[in-house]
């Protein structure tokens, strides 16, 4: 893909920022704030919502910016894998939401219950109605554990049941279960759902990490690792999928294709997968459950959801993939996990999406057109063992878009990529929340 020379040089400057695939954002600093009395409501105080709030607060003077989210604890989700690998404790990924809310932004600590894009208002769970001129939907997504028959989130950490995504404590509990398994050996199952999902590399990484922990403890010979892909590929980007196929073969991780987890019996340690040949039961000693993911009900049941096509079933928001502007309600932007776009459910995507959406929103207030476009960029530091990772970056068209072409090879297991993941990613993420990266 063609990239302007200036963009490449900027990327090279931003070494730490490369962890998130941070190309420079549309201008915000050094630009005089726009005076406006616009009422802007942001639903969701996750990575996308907080970053949007910070950037809007920087670029607008006099706007009434309201952030709606019940969660008082913010979760640094890219760190969950490190917690589940025993490298960080649960506190590494948690912080107070309020600590990240920009000044001049009002936080309503309630869940949004209903969105009325026709009447331009949001109703909170307590029945309060908040009107808006512009709406940014950043609700994140819903982990649908209930869709897996027999799944009990409360049992994560016991009976060989792990699930990295469920939260900080559950990630720590998953580490305990994985560690117990690594002491004894047996069969470990890894999988991903057939739905869209956040950070599709995470389940793959966790299989690599489990393999590494087993090898370090000298029990790899007593263990069988099986990755259950939901389709015929390990990854949506063909060139990455092929590299992963080779690495899994090298590590001795067996792959089942077209296997989707349907049910689990934690007591008997049996997982049932839906396959083209019918249901198949697989026994396990350890399993990392990744649940189906869908848009939260407040979006799924609203007029904002896709009505047809691949994103309709799970209710993802219908946005233009290049501007993140809603297809039918032009004063609505949807960013982060909830956006119904082909790729982009990662913090790296948020980093690229938010400045684009914010620029379009500000341009609309100004009565001008914004040239900013989101090209589907996302990034996955694919950990292949403790101490090494591959910096995989790609766009909507499955092109590799390395931040450091010729320097950091995207499909090479490198220590420098691990360093970026370990110490560069979180500071960049936090700077992003503050609208400074």
């Amino acid at each position, binding site marked *: 893909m063609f990239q302007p020379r200036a963009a490449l040089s900027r990327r090279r400057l931003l070494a730490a920022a490369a962890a998130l695939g941070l190309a420079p954002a549309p201008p915000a600093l050094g630009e005089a704030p726009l005076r406006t009395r616009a009422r802007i409501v942001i639903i969701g105080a996750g990575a996308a919502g907080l970053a949007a709030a910070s950037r809007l607060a920087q670029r607008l003077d006099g706007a009434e910016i309201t952030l709606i989210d019940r969660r008082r604890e913010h979760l640094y989700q890219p760190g969950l894998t490190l917690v589940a690998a025993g490298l960080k404790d649960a506190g590494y990924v948690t912080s107070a939401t309020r600590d990240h809310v920009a000044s001049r932004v009002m936080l309503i600590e309630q869940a949004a219950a209903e969105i009325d894009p026709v009447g331009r208002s949001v109703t909170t769970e307590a029945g309060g109605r908040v009107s808006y001129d512009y709406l940014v939907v950043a609700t994140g997504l819903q982990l649908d554990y209930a869709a897996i028959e027999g799944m009990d989130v409360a049992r994560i950490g016991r009976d060989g049941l792990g699930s990295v995504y469920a939260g900080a404590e559950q990630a720590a509990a998953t580490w305990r279960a994985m560690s117990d398994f690594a002491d004894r050996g047996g069969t470990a199952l890894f999988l991903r759902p057939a739905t869209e999902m956040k950070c599709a590399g995470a389940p793959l990484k966790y299989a690599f990490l489990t393999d590494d922990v087993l090898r370090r403890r000298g029990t790899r010979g007593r263990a069988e690792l099986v990755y259950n892909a939901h389709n015929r590929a390990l990854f949506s980007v063909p060139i990455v999928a092929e590299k992963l196929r080779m690495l899994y073969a090298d590590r001795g991780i067996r792959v089942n294709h077209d296997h989707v987890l349907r049910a689990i019996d934690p007591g008997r340690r049996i997982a049932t997968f839906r396959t083209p040949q019918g249901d198949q039961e697989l026994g396990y000693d350890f399993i990392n459950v990744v649940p189906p993911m869908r848009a939260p009900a407040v979006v799924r049941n609203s007029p904002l959801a896709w009505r047809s096509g691949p994103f309709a079933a799970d209710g993802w928001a219908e946005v233009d993939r290049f501007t993140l502007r809603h297809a039918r309600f032009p004063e609505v932007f949807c960013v982060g996990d909830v956006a119904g776009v082909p790729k982009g459910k990662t913090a790296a995507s948020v980093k690229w999406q938010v400045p684009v959406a914010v620029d379009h929103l500000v341009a609309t207030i100004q009565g001008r057109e914004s040239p900013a476009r989101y090209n589907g960029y996302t990034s996955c530091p694919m950990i292949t063992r403790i101490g090494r990772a591959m910096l995989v970056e790609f766009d909507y068209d499955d092109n590799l878009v390395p931040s450091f072409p010729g320097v950091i090879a995207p499909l090479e297991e490198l220590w420098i990529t691990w360093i970026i993941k*370990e110490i560069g990613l979180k500071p960049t993420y936090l700077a992003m929340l503050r609208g400074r990266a």
Partner: protein
Amino acid sequence: MKDLEIWTLVAVFQEMLGWAVWPIAAFCVLAPLGLAIVLLHDRGIVAGRMLRAELLGLLGGVVAVTAMFAVTSSSPADLGGPIDWLLAIVIFAAGGIGTAIGGYVAMGLLAAPRAPAPAHIDVGRAGRAALGQGEATLP
């Protein structure tokens, strides 16, 4: 855009290092400044002090690399491609040069209240004879 990029990097390093970012930044500015002052004061490099500073620098380089491995739960066995070795060398060099400069300046400043360390040059027997004295100390 350049200004923006620099401030972006500053923001990231602030988040990474917390309060320590400012002492480190101060060191990066003050250490070369201190080195210049000490060199001017001494009117040159004091060889013995430089040797001690270089030895300290070697230690500093090793500590920097070791600390990076420790902080990132990794080990030398994780070095993969050439860029990894380059990074390790850069970390070693940064730690080594920083420690050497810091050490040299510190030793220079500690020695500063006294008269500048004189350069002891043996002018040889012929020189002593020419000067008409047993020992020669040239400033």
